């Protein structure tokens, strides 16, 4: 009798590690209790592919996917779904997600995995199992089979990529009284588990294919060599072999013919190198699994010196489909060089990890961003590592590369054993190189000196680099060693071991150099190179961990002083910084990252309240320094110059100091009063400020007696679109608009239909300001989708809440109007492939033009510096920024330095602060001094609260915000901030990653003295 529901629960190792078997048993009990046993068919299957979200369950006929099941969910599931027929939404994996994961996949070889019970041969037979064997034994000659396999274009899936049909042909033609078929199931590559999934989910397809191979080459015995680390695969294979024998499908006179074939199971014992075919043969024979010289190839001399066919599990899993559907049908799938489908093990920093099967020709980008659903936690894609320790990296420039043996090899990676490890911005390439070398070194069998000793030398060098003791010559030495090892090793393990280092150096040499020269690990992995990940991630290296420790004890002043060592704008950064520090926060791996920005706000507000001031240098140095521009870069440079003993002069062309902080950031994000207090403090520390004074030539300053100049004029000119009608009245740059409303209170936006073009912070600010000034409606037109917007997430959310309308995947093509703009012609965009930066590439959809009304258009497509006036004196880059030596920030004139947006292009406050501070140091060095602050010494901060208490999950505190109705009517600050008590509690969540790091002892009292008493 057919059952009402088929309930398939995944019993692969990934899911059973999260108790899928216990869940199945509980369901059984529940069904029995409720008398539903006869109505529901409960099956434990092999891997369904979606390992990350396990344990997985699918309920047919409606194909409802359940994920992350727990034993406690069982009774609800049985009661609500199995009995009453209502889907348990709470546990369901929503249909759009299901579609996303499966849509671009094409399941042929894993079609049975996750559908049938691998421990029941009848289920395999029911889906056409052993039909291919019957067809071969009764209708085909061995030559016919070989023909079909050659026609299919199947290439060995073990890694070396040899055409399977030819291998079968050679082994058949090889002379020998006895021959063997070996299935290589010693899948050891880190990050690979496709063979395990097949063996656990559909073991009979491998057995069937081995028998076909045996018939073709003339063998009667087969071996499956499976690694001992796969106990479930061993169990299911053992059951499958027994059942096949019982059904007469294995053993003597199969299908009543005179063909005899049996299979023995061989188990490894933990030796990676035994997966190499000659080593595997040694291991089958009971010896140490060490590789041998080739030729002779196994096809001539294999197990016991007899001709042996060795095929990988996945290769064999393809055979029955080729036989049943014909080689030509199979060969029609895929690309010219690579036929059929391919399994991949998608792991690492990707949302959907698991086993996937795709047709050749799908691109890397589609795998990572469609099937894998992109990188978790809003991190940036860095690279994908393919082919394990023998493979290499593929970077974001190559996301459009199709999966194809030749195309992948061209990039220096290999398809290999099908591991695909996705790396994000927090993965260090030097660490990865060290890791892989360490792996192959451990697994080297030790026969060949280059592999045994050379890899140790490579590891020593990489170790040195990650600890900050590397030399630039080390990189050449690494390449030399790598080449020698590749050329002189006997087997593929040694021959490919240096690949991760070589491709690492090919694509990420700058990261290696950064480790050696700057002693910096930007990913925050090489622990010897930094105190804590937050400090490392901050462009100005503000000592977050130290000020959090002070805040944990409620010491506002101390925390504030620590911040001032590296950044004189804590109030500003507490409000507008994208908080690079929070991204890699270790606490985020535990529950949520610390709300560092919000904690900072408390001590910065304290300093403003008590009007904390720094004394100017008492005996200033004689050298005179001019700074052009009073934005974050210019003023930071000025502040740190005063701490180094100078009294610099800042020239500002506008009526107020502050640059973009003053003119570009609206009050509801950064109140002007708060900003002014911070600027005044810097001026009071010994800076002369000259307003309304535009410097037109640097020589002019030289003539006035300045010995050095820092150019920090920012980037204030909006970039144009270059489309028709852009010069119409009513169209202006976003930055120009924000500047206008700051200086001209009469600028009229009331009742206007405003359209903002762009998706960055400026676009959000322009849109929200227009709304507050009484615009009739505000639309944001952006050519990509919401996920790609460069603006901070919170800005977009708040803009949406306030009623701003977003037109995503839309781009203006023409501005229409008589004299004034009236309408915008737009075109819809769609994503096709990826651009060089790894973002999805929008392309216009033909014929999708439409018009929208507009009275005011604000173009926020980015800005460029206005530095053409200096072009006679300084070298300017093609993109309009000033050319500097990134190490010293020195321009083409030796006494002139430059930084901030004028050098970086539009960037963040903190990046400009970092450059300003660096310029101060470099200017000091230029004058022949040390360029060192006597306060930049680290101390051990002893805290006085119970740290243990905060080591349980505690959620991150979020500040209150002003109600929407209230905030859209005024420029009141939206974020109300945390209370002091909340901020202290939040600071105490810090895990103190800097603990145990070598630090200098320095008392906070001395810090205050040195921050104040200069020279």
């Amino acid at each position, binding site marked *: 009798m057919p059952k009402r529901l088929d309930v398939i629960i995944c019993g692969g*190792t*990934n899911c*059973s*590690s*999260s108790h899928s078997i216990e869940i199945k048993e509980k369901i059984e009990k529940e069904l029995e209790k409720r008398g539903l046993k006869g109505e529901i068919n409960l099956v434990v299957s092999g891997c369904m592919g*979606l*390992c*990350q979200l*396990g344990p997985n369950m699918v309920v047919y006929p409606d194909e409802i996917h359940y994920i992350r099941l727990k034993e406690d969910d069982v009774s609800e599931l049985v009661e609500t779904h199995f009995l009453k027929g209502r889907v348990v939404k709470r546990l369901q994996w929503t249909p759009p997600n299901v579609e996303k994961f499966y849509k671009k996949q094409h399941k042929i070889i894993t079609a049975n995995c996750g559908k049938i019970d691998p421990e029941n041969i009848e289920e395999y037979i029911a889906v056409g199992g052993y039909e291919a064997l019957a067809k071969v034994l009764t209708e085909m000659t061995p030559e016919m089979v070989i023909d079909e396999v050659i026609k299919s274009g199947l290439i060995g899936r073990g890694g070396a990529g040899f055409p399977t049909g030819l291998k079968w042909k050679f082994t058949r033609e090889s002379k020998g009284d006895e021959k063997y078929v070996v299935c290589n199931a010693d*899948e*050891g*590559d*880190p*990050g*690979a*588990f496709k063979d*395990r999934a097949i063996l656990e989910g559909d073991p009979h397809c491998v057995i069937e294919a081995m028998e076909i191979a045996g018939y073709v080459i003339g063998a009667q015995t087969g071996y499956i060599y499976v690694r*001992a*680390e*796969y*106990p479930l695969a061993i169990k299911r294979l053992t059951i499958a072999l027994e059942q096949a024998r019982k059904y007469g499908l294995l053993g003597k006179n199969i299908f009543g013919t005179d063909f005899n074939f049996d299979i023995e199971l*061989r*188990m*490894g*014992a*933990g*030796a*990676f190198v035994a997966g190499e075919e000659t080593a595997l043969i040694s*291991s*089958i*024979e*009971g*010896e*140490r*699994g*060490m590789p041998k010289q080739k030729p002779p190839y196994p096809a001539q001399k294999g197990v016991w010196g007899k001709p042996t066919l060795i095929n990988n599990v996945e290769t064999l899993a393809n055979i029955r489909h080729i036989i049943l559907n014909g080689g030509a049908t199979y060969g029609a799938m895929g690309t010219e060089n690579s036929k059929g489908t391919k399994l991949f*093990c998608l*792991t*690492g*920093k990707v949302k959907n*990890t*698991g*086993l996937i099967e795709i047709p050749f020709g799908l691109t890397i980008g589609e795998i990572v961003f469609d099937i894998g659903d992109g990188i978790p936690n809003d991190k940036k894609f860095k690279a994908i*590592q393919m082919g*394990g320790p023998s493979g290499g990296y593929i970077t974001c420039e190559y996301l459009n590369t199709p999966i194809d043996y030749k195309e992948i090899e061209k990039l220096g990676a290999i398809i290999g054993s099908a*591991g695909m*490890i996705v*790396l994000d911005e927090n*993965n260090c390439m030097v660490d*990865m190189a060290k*890791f*892989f070398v360490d*792996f192959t070194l*451990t*697994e080297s*069998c030790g026969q060949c000196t280059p592999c045994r000793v050379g890899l140790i030398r490579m590891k020593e060098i990489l170790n040195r680099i990650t600890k900050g003791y590397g030399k630039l010559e080390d990189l050449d030495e690494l390449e030399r060693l790598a080449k020698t090892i590749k050329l002189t090793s006997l087997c593929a393990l040694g021959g490919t071991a240096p690949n991760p280092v070589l491709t690492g150096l090919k694509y990420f040499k700058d990261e290696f150099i950064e480790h050696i020269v700057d002693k910096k690990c930007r990913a925050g992995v090489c622990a010897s190179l930094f105190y804590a990940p937050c400090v490392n991630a901050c462009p100005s290296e503000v000592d977050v961990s130290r000020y959090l420790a002070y805040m944990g004890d409620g010491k506002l002043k101390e925390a504030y002083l620590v911040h001032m060592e590296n950044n004189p704008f804590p109030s500003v950064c507490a409000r507008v910084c994208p908080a690079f520090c929070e991204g890699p926060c270790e606490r985020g*791996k*535990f529950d949520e990252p610390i709300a560092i920005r919000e904690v900072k706000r408390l001590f910065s507000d304290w300093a403003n309240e008590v009007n904390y001031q720094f004394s100017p240098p008492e005996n200033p140095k004689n050298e005179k320094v001019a700074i052009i521009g009073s934005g974050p870069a210019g003023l930071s440079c000025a502040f740190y110059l005063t701490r180094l003993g100078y009294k610099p002069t800042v020239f500002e062309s506008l009526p107020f100091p502050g640059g973009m902080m003053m003119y570009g950031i609206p009050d509801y994000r950064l109140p002007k009063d708060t900003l002014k207090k911070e600027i005044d403090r810097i001026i009071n520390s010994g800076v002369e400020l000259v307003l309304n004074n535009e410097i037109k030539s640097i020589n002019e300053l030289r003539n006035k007696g300045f010995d050095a100049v820092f150019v920090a004029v920012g980037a204030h000119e909006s970039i144009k679109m270059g489309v028709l009608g852009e010069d119409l009245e009513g169209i202006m740059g976003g930055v120009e608009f924000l500047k206008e409303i700051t200086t001209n209170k009469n600028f009229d936006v009331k009742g206007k239909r405003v359209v903002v073009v762009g998706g960055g912070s400026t676009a959000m600010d322009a849109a929200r300001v227009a709304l507050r000034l009484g615009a009739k409606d505000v639309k944001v037109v952006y050519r990509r989708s919401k996920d790609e917007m460069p603006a901070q997430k919170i800005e977009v959310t708040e803009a949406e809440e306030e009623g701003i309308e977003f037109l995503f995947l839309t781009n203006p093509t023409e501005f229409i109007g008589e004299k004034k703009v009236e309408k915008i012609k737009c075109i819809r965009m769609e994503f096709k492939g990826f651009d060089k930066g790894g973002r999805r590439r929008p392309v216009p959809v033909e014929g999708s033009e439409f018009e929208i009304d507009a009275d005011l258009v604000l173009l926020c497509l980015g800005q460029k510096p206005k530095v053409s006036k200096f072009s006679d004196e300084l070298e300017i880059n093609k993109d309009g920024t000033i050319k500097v030596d990134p190490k010293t920030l020195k321009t083409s004139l030796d006494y002139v330095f430059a930084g901030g947006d004028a050098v970086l292009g539009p960037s963040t406050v903190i990046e400009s602060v970092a450059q300003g501070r660096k310029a101060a140091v470099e200017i000091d060095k230029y004058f022949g001094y040390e360029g060192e602050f006597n306060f930049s010494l680290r101390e051990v901060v002893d805290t006085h609260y119970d740290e243990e208490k905060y080591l349980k999950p505690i959620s991150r505190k979020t500040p209150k915000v002003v109600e929407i109705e209230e905030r859209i009517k005024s420029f009141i600050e939206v974020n109300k901030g945390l209370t002091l008590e909340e901020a202290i509690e939040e600071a105490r969540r810090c895990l103190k990653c800097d603990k145990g790091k070598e630090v200098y002892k320095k008392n906070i009292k001395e810090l205050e003295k040195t921050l104040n008493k200069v020279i």
Partner: protein
Amino acid sequence: MKKEEVFEKFESKPENILLILHEIQDLNPNKYLTEEDLKRVSEKLNLPYSFVYGVASFYTMFSLKPRGKYIIRVCESPPCHLVGSLNILNELKKILKIDIGQTTKDNLFTLEITSCLGVCGVAPAMMINEDVYGNLTVEKIKEIIDEKRRGK
């Protein structure tokens, strides 16, 4: 099953050496191969003792010194490394107060590292004897070890 029965179960062919060593090792409450065991295998399979010793010492899953009741093997492959297997390993060292390759004084746990377990979908992962544990966190580690200590 006794050790002698293992020899009866498998034909005395050199090719069965790995299977025999596996089973003998599993029979030992301390999960290792004694000198006596290796001698016996060498006699039974008619192989030189040096050869048997060579095989037993080559493969990482065989141990020539006593181990605990629970052999914890932490996966150290890149997918696990990327998502923090090092933290897991350090936590285990801390809880068990032993280093890699060592056994706790109560003979309950031995800590080892292993190459890829092939469960990268639920990384970081480890195996205790034949059971796989995935999606490990520091919290989870504590629970698992506590459970084992309570003899569950």
